[in-house]
């Protein structure tokens, strides 16, 4: 056969070739499974932090009060304007799945789902227990943990019989089905030990270590029941969300940061930023709020998630906010009031543990003391900027560069907001330690920096 005939025959053969129908889907399924291996690494690289959750909104509660089905659901989401708007717009999947075990009846009543987040609303009833804690774990059909951020609002105890909620956030997309293992714990031993009761504020930082180390403290909550639910999501809901490229920027302290895109979901909004290559510092945090042209306002950090860092650099590249998904807004204005930088190539903070002195502390941080307690050192810091339960230092190493385990953090409020931070180093033999700061300097804008982000 002549070469050209061979060539034409080969092209004809190729034109008949088609990949298997499920080739792309197999890759997507594998992507979802692969995602599960990353949560720990991702969480270690970022600082997703809890903030105060309760922000009651009377108008929404009133708006929903006339609709019996929605009344309780509206009450359950008063901490989050995005979810409030979702309730107002009937954006909820009614499910009613009931499971019973050991005298407990648990009913999953509603799901609120979009492309990134699953919110589960459930009710626990018991004749014997009136105050329990639940912990939700989300798993795939083959038992692997799912999602990378689980928030269970019943932590610390909830009265039985009320509608509770928990959520799981996905780095990529919500799968079509999800298993939920709900464990119910008896909180009464812990509540009895801590005489203030389960709703008391946490003890001051100094007392916290004593509390944590106390032999009398109940270290394990008795497990009362463990129930498995299989959740299936309406594809309409799991498809909700949109990615909007944008191009806005601001400059502070000579550092330029670009808002490159936003992702708007019913449950939340993600604002994606990137620092200019020539910047001498990484952007570590922002404080901001959002407002539509009609004056509707949205807070940052809905449901306790503040921001996420890049897996490749120390930069924080994604900020969460309440979502304008259900609002007819052409644009939102981001009003930035504060931020934190981490100087590139900054030296570690050195702490002389014996003499309780420090070098290269981040701006506005003071070392109050270093105390050897049992088999570890406990450092106390005061921050001049009260705020989140945020770690000032994420990693520690000794003078030879060996990693030192940080045994935990504790926070307390002396003034308005959390301003005392305490961390434990699990090595009492150290005489000095080097700590990697989360940030090196902070700034506060004299006037809020306004950036307009187009949504349409």
């Amino acid at each position, binding site marked *: *056969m002549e*070469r*050209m005939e*061979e*060539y034409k025959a*080969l*092209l004809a053969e*190729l034109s008949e*070739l*088609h*990949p*298997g129908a499920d*080739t*792309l889907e*197999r*890759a*997507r399924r*594998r*992507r979802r499974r*692969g995602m599960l291996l990353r949560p720990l690494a991702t969480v270690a690289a970022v600082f997703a932090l809890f903030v105060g959750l309760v922000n009651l909104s009377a108008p929404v509660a009133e708006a929903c009060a006339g609709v019996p089905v929605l009344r309780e659901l509206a009450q359950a989401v008063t901490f989050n304007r995005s979810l409030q708007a979702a309730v107002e717009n009937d954006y909820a999947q009614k499910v009613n799945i009931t499971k019973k075990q050991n005298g407990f009846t648990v009913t999953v009543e509603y799901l609120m789902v979009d*492309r990134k987040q699953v919110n589960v609303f459930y009710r626990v009833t018991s004749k014997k227990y009136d105050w329990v804690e639940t912990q939700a774990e989300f798993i795939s059909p083959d038992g692997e943990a799912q999602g990378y951020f689980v928030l269970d609002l019943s932590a610390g105890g909830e009265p039985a019989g009320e509608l509770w909620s928990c959520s799981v956030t996905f780095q*990529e*997309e919500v799968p079509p089905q999800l298993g939920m293992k709900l464990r119910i714990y008896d909180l009464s031993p812990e509540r009895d030990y801590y005489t203030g009761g389960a709703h008391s504020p946490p003890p001051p930082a100094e007392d916290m270590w004593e509390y944590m180390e106390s032999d009398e403290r109940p270290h394990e909550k008795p497990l009362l029941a463990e129930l498995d639910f299989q959740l299936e999501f309406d594809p309409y809901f799991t*498809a909700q969300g949109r*990615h909007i490229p944008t191009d806005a920027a601001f400059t502070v302290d000579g550092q330029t940061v670009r808002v490159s895109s936003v*992702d708007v979901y019913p449950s939340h909004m993600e604002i994606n930023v990137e620092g200019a290559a020539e910047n001498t510092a990484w952007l570590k945090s922002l404080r901001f709020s959002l407002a539509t042209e009609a004056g509707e306002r949205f807070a940052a950090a809905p449901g306790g998630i503040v921001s996420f860092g890049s897996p490749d650099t120390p930069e924080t590249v994604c900020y969460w906010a309440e979502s304008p998904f259900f609002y007819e807004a052409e644009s939102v204005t981001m009003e930035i009031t504060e931020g934190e930088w981490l100087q590139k190539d900054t030296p570690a903070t050195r702490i002389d543990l014996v003499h309780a002195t420090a070098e290269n502390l981040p701006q506005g941080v003071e070392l109050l003391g270093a105390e050897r307690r049992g088999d570890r050192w406990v450092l106390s810091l005061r921050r001049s900027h009260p705020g989140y339960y945020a770690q000032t230092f994420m990693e520690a190493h000794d003078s030879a560069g060996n990693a030192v385990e940080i045994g935990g953090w504790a926070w307390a409020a002396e003034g308005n907001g959390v301003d005392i931070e305490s961390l434990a180093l699990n090595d009492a033999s150290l005489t000095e330690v080097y700590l990697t700061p989360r940030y090196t300097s902070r700034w506060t804008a004299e006037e809020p920096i306004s950036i307009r982000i187009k949504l349409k």
Partner: protein
Amino acid sequence: MDMAEFARRAEEIKDRLYRTAYLYLGDVSASDEALSEAVYKGLCACGRLRQEEYFTTWMTRILINVCRDELKRRRREGAVEELPETAAESFDALPLRQAVAALPGELKDVVLLRYFAGYTLRQTAEILGIPQGTAATRQRRALALLRLDLGEEE
């Protein structure tokens, strides 16, 4: 690029990618695996693709790297034979498909993308990360070895 957009764009070019994989690997099962692996890698990295106009080029490059890895594995097992450019007569003796498979790697890349997968010379150069002039030279050498008169213009 978000995952939904990735899925849409990948769906559009999956046949082309699959055929490219087939040209490299020569069997449907391995091509299916290679495509699935490339799509998986693309899915994992699509958030970092800033210029969406390069999606096809980018995905094709990922696919070729997957195919090369598979060919390396086969080579370790002695299952792949390439002929040197000096063995012109040996190429003549082979059917076209085997002759293409026996081309030195850098020539094979260009001829597969250009004449079988249907990319332009500029796209071929972008996918392979080489200057367009280099791609043109390799294309000329490959066509000469294969004794194919397909025209070399863009």
